């Protein structure tokens, strides 16, 4: 107990450090003192503007998105009792992309708040469909069924999105940047809009962590312990849509954080989800902050997107999981 709490405190300190690093480092390094002054003694200079309008929102978005994705992944893995569950396999990303492309194609323009709403809708529907397809039948949600249902829905949504992008050059121009999952150029206004949903998702998840843990012991055990499994599953789905939907709405598809981090968290604190959930949130925030900082330095001439960095880290991890388990 004590040592786990200490771990959380340490994690929070590390997150704070990475947050500062994310503000200070970049194409133009800004001295920490200057960064501090821009927040509390704003003088309108170029450096202060960069910090306030670019660096700070970006760092905060990276932190929140990482935390939300990792938590969503942990909830999914607990509820489905499937180590491969995660936002991307559930079609959340492709669903959101498709839901944004359709109005973009139909009306030619989608406002920032509109795209957030569409992303929620798409993410929720796609996730629910994959889940329902996966749990059909007697075996429950086996890894293979989840992979096949997920990749079918992903393929279908991907093809439909591509079809609309082929037909409309303007949508393609807008969407290709969104699709890369980059954290640059996301406005703080859009962030302010999704933040309440993210916080609601986090609060809901933490409030339910005890029930989620019970559910992760297995359907029968949970029922034997008097848990209303249907209700917990439904609430979990809402939490996941809030967490993953907000993330994809603000940052585009960022893969593998939700898949990989819960495994790391379980490795560190064991299988008690009351601890796995907060640890996942902290580690996810750390990972995405670091990935975003790394993205600025890998190719000096051009920033690569954080989504690519996490994919580079995550694919080997998925393969490692497959080798170890199957």
């Amino acid at each position, binding site marked *: 107990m004590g040592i786990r709490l200490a771990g959380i405190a340490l994690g929070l300190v590390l997150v704070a450090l990475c947050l500062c690093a994310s503000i200070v480092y970049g194409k133009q390094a800004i001295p920490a003192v200057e960064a501090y002054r821009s927040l509390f003694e704003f003088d309108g200079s170029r450096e202060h503007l960069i910090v306030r309008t670019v660096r700070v929102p970006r760092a905060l978005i990276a932190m929140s998105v990482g935390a939300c994705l990792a938590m969503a992944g942990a909830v999914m893995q607990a509820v489905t009792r499937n180590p*491969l569950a995660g936002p*991307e*396999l559930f079609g959340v990303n492709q669903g959101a992309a498709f839901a944004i492309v359709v109005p973009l194609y139909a009306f030619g323009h989608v406002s920032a708040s509109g795209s957030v709403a569409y992303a929620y809708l798409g993410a929720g529907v796609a996730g629910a469909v994959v889940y329902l*397809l996966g749990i*059909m*039948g*007697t*075996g429950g949600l086996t*890894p*293979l*069924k989840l*992979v*096949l*249902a997920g*990749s*079918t*829905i992903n*393929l*279908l949504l991907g*093809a*439909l999105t*591509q*079809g609309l*992008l*082929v*037909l409309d*050059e303007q949508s*393609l*121009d807008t969407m*290709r*940047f969104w*699709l*890369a*999952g*980059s954290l640059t150029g996301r406005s703080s206004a859009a962030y302010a809009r999704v933040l309440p949903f993210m916080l609601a998702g986090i609060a809901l998840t933490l409030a339910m962590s005890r029930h989620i843990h019970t559910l992760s012991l297995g359907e029968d055990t949970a029922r034997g312990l008097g848990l209303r499994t249907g209700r917990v599953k439904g609430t979990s789905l809402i939490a996941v849509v809030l967490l993953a939907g907000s993330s994809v709405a603000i940052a585009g*598809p960022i*893969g*593998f954080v939700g898949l990989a981090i819960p495994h790391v968290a379980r490795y560190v604190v064991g299988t008690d989800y009351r601890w796995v959930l907060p640890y996942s949130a902290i580690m996810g925030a750390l990972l995405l902050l670091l990935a975003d900082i790394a993205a600025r330095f890998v190719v000096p001439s*051009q920033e*690569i*997107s954080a*989504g*690519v960095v996490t*994919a*580079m880290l*995550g*694919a080997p991890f*998925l*393969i490692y*999981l*497959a*080798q170890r388990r*199957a």
Partner: protein
Amino acid sequence: METRFAQGKVSLLLVLSILTALSAIVLFFQIILGDFPIPAADALQALAGNGSERYDLVVNRFRFPRALVAFLAGAGLALSGTILQGITRNPLASPGVLGLNSGAALVAVSCMVLFPNFPVGALPFAAFAGACLAATLSYFLAWKRGLSPVRLVLVGVGIAASAGAFVSFLLTFSDLAQAKRAVIWMSGSVYGRSWEHFWPMLPWLAALVPIALLMARKLDVLQLGDSLAVGLGTRLERVRGGLLLAAVASAGAAVAMAGTIGFVGLMAPHLSRFLVGSRSLRLIPTAVLTGGLLVMLADLLGRTLAAPLEIPCGILIAVIGAPYMIYLLFKKRNH
């Protein structure tokens, strides 16, 4: 799904000839329909080599080879899917699930985006190399004291996902025209394909279909399970490796020429199993014809449904194929 057909009451020859006839009919419609309709008689004359000059160009330079490329691409993907479903003993396996398509897409799009002067003629080779690379990776990463089909699928999904992330990243690098070209290529289209695409593809299929037929018995034995197959004297890893190679080569050739068309490799074997049953010797030729027919038909519809817009055939097939796959998942839910 053993139907009346499958029990051999309808002869294989009959099914094959009906499929061939249907293919010929679709092929003919491919030639006469379009923005520039061609009277049937003139089309036939042009095919015979003595048509008028304006018809000759459209028929023999554009529409006829394009239809043939579509047919070969479908046939290659169907062959690959049939073999993969056999090896993995999983009716839902297909070239896409193994990361073949994504590997091909990654290499092809990289060439398009990073080297703006990359010759179009070399693109198929790049795509082929990408498909082979992804398949080799899947194979070796899934290897752990033997090859487990489940592991193969999981690893393939991982490779597909990371290749996909890189592709979307590359699209942000490129200018809009290149990005559009790349997206069209990835959605699977036979637009602008002609003889220079047909001839390099033909030998692959001409060689691989007979090879697959020769190995059909071994593929059937693999269905019985690893231990029984070994008991019956199969050199398991060798046979599996050989079959996998054939599957990769045929899908790779198809993807190289027509871009990433999903779902054919999944659907064609299933439709064929419904027609002729699950013995590989009967299944393979039927699936090859069905796959070719499907892609050709999708291309015909894509060209004519929303004319003058052209819907890439890969997208049409996905729209038909995904509900079909969902239906399969639903039907097999208790397995």
